[in-house]
């Protein structure tokens, strides 16, 4: 099994590093209210732009808000967006990809539409949708999911096409198995590896793009904390209060790095050819 405690997955250095970083982030996000005594949006302007101190671990921003607290809640927002986008992308991507890969007649129509969507960079689609629907967490999740699902669908389709003509699928069909049984029992199980890898990359991409959208002013609406929004706000103060931009910037780097490492690690681990080379 993939996650058996004796599995070699826990010996992959990329995966171990990623899991450590992600565990810390998850811990900070979940237990934020217990880790810090400050509220993320509580202002104290008389105490603005204070450098890091024992009272304010990462200093204060232009409203006198505790930067460390806002980062904790910002991570929470990033993880929420990333997780939601991955789930929605999986649901729609897998559904469309299976339909397309399994039923050739549908394939021609669906793939042409998805090709059209993929002609535009995902971030451009997300910015356009966010600008039309307005900012806010839910709109951002929907916009990013819409932007990412075509790629997921294409990956699923490729896997389905390569699996559906294999002997064991033919055998199942010969003994009278229905389409849905074949899809769930044989095809999706064997297509899980590329889907899983793509999902982790989508997680990283969603965090990065959420930061980009917030940076551009169409993401999570202020005063709610978000890592990208914090960087936007910090631009005007970066020369007098550099901690405002360094801390959220580092957090974005670490979170994206962690998910990319996880994706790379899983790909290496799940791909027998690559694993062979590594070993």
């Amino acid at each position: 099994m993939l996650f058996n405690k004796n599995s070699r997955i826990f010996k992959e250095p990329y995966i171990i590093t990623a899991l450590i970083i992600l565990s810390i982030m998850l811990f900070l996000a979940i237990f934020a209210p217990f880790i810090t005594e400050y509220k993320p949006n509580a202002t104290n302007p008389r105490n603005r732009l204070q450098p890091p101190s024992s009272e304010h671990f990462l200093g204060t921003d232009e409203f006198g808000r505790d930067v460390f607290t806002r980062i904790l809640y910002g991570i929470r927002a990033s993880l929420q967006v990333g997780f939601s986008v991955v789930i929605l992308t999986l649901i729609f991507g897998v559904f469309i990809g299976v339909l397309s890969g399994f039923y050739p007649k549908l394939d021609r129509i669906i793939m042409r539409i998805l090709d059209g969507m993929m002609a535009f960079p995902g971030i451009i689609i997300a910015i356009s949708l966010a600008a039309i629907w307005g900012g806010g967490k839910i709109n951002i999740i929907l916009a990013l999911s819409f932007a990412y699902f075509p790629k997921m669908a294409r990956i699923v389709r490729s896997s389905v096409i390569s699996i559906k003509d294999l002997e064991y699928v033919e055998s199942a069909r010969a003994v009278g198995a229905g389409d849905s049984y074949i899809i769930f029992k044989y095809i999706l199980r064997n297509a899980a590896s590329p889907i899983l890898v793509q999902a982790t990359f989508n997680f990283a991409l969603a965090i990065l793009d959420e930061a980009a959208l917030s940076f551009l002013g169409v993401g999570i609406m202020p005063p709610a904390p978000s890592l990208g929004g914090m960087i936007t706000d910090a631009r005007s103060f970066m020369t007098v209060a550099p901690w405002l931009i360094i801390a959220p910037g580092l957090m974005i780097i670490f979170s994206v790095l962690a998910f990319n490492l996880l994706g790379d690690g899983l790909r290496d681990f799940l791909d027998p050819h690559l694993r062979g080379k590594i070993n």
Partner: protein
Amino acid sequence: MKEVLILKKSIFIITILLLIMMTFSTAAQNETEGVYGGRLNAALKMSAPHLDSDNSTDSQITAMMNHVYEGLFEFDENLQLQPHLAESYSVSDDGREYIVELRQDVMMHNGEKMDADDVLASFERWVNINGAGNLIKPYFDQAEKLDDYRIRFKFEEPYAPFLNIMASPVSNQKFVVRAKEIIDVFGDNVINRHVGTGPYQVKEWIPDQNLSLVRFEDYSPNQMEASFFAGKRTPYLDEIVLNFITDAQVRVSGVQTAQFHFAEEVSRDQYQLFEADANINTQIIYPDQMAVFVTNNGIAPFDNKYARKAMVYALDLEEMGFSMVGNPDFWRLEPSLHEEGNPWYAENVGEGIYNVYDPDKARELLEKADYDGTPLVILSGQDSQVERQGAIAIKDQLERIGIEVELQLFDRPTVVERRSELEGWNIHLSSFIKTVPDPQIHQGWTGTNKWITNWNSEESREMDAIFERMVREVDYDQRYQIVEEFYEKMWETVPYFNMLDYSRLHITRAELKNFEPAWQTFFWNTWLEE
């Protein structure tokens, strides 16, 4: 022998004195005489949709086109009205008739001399389509040409602020003289070929990118002493390029790297850094901006004066100053709509309510106003630091006393569109120019239910009556009493209020000389030195 010695001593002393005088006079001459030539690059904070001030309420258009167009009258640095394209003027005793004599030597960019036909065509257009011109319309009778250089403006009723409004530095209000030939071509439509009398003419206009102006070689300056917008304008610079750079930090970097000679409105928190840089001069614009708290008085809860008053008590204005502007050297608490020293400044207005932070009183007043707890919507711009940060700070302060608030931050055009609607918003923040020379120039004063507050009740009609008397009263003392009456009514009903005054900070390169920090930026009389 003694006489010879005395003579020698006298000659020596006189020579020394002459030398000293020559040295000082040369220094003085160097200070006032500039260097011709060079191209100035300026970074302005925002672009404009077009360059026709009569067809927009955007003050940026007037600020840029002050180089191209001039007024019959302009304000000097003491906010005193001075004839500019006008040579002189006279007002009849009953205040209904103004005779304006024009300067006869003024060349326009088309090579023609400016005369009464150009002024009349421009004035007719201004009255028809400019917001300030529209205000005059109900009182105005006619403008007639007495000869090529004399015009009579006749009013049906006395209209006290006429000259001040014509020279107004607020928004798009100023009346400027355009060539009749372009008005004949464009009529009331947006003008995109510009022929004025100013020291510079339009070379190229690339929307959202830049506006290039070149020196008008045949410019005919007013010969009065230069003082802000009035007096002699000397176009030392060959070319002025006004670049539109929306990101403040990019404007700052541009000046630091000598890409730009001027950056408009930069962060006041970086003041110490700029001061320490020998290549940069800081230009503080005397508190000329007001951060105005505007309520939508057309719908609940702010259709009730107690709810509006509650907002004044609910806000810690000092805290607002730190949030909106930051550095306390750049803001001050001031309830009057005119600055101290202005003839219309009123002391002690808003006493007992302004800057009296009392959350309990606020809750009590909201209860009296039957406020049902529906979340209040703050509509504010996200392009302006003051408005954006002010909105966030207000949300936090109101939530602290238990009021639920929804924050809506948009770009400027969206905010302007949404605030023009009766529904959908409750609170709006807006920045207004403080330095206005007449109580009626200010948009907030020019009407009640006509303005964005949607105020339309018995109280607003009483306020309209006060405005009406203010318009007709030409005697300063009598008019000042009406202004005091206005303030009393204003703080009794609070249709809107000034939270604080704040200064703007521009920066210039050290090589840009003789820059004057005026309320609208101009580059005549400035020059570049290597």
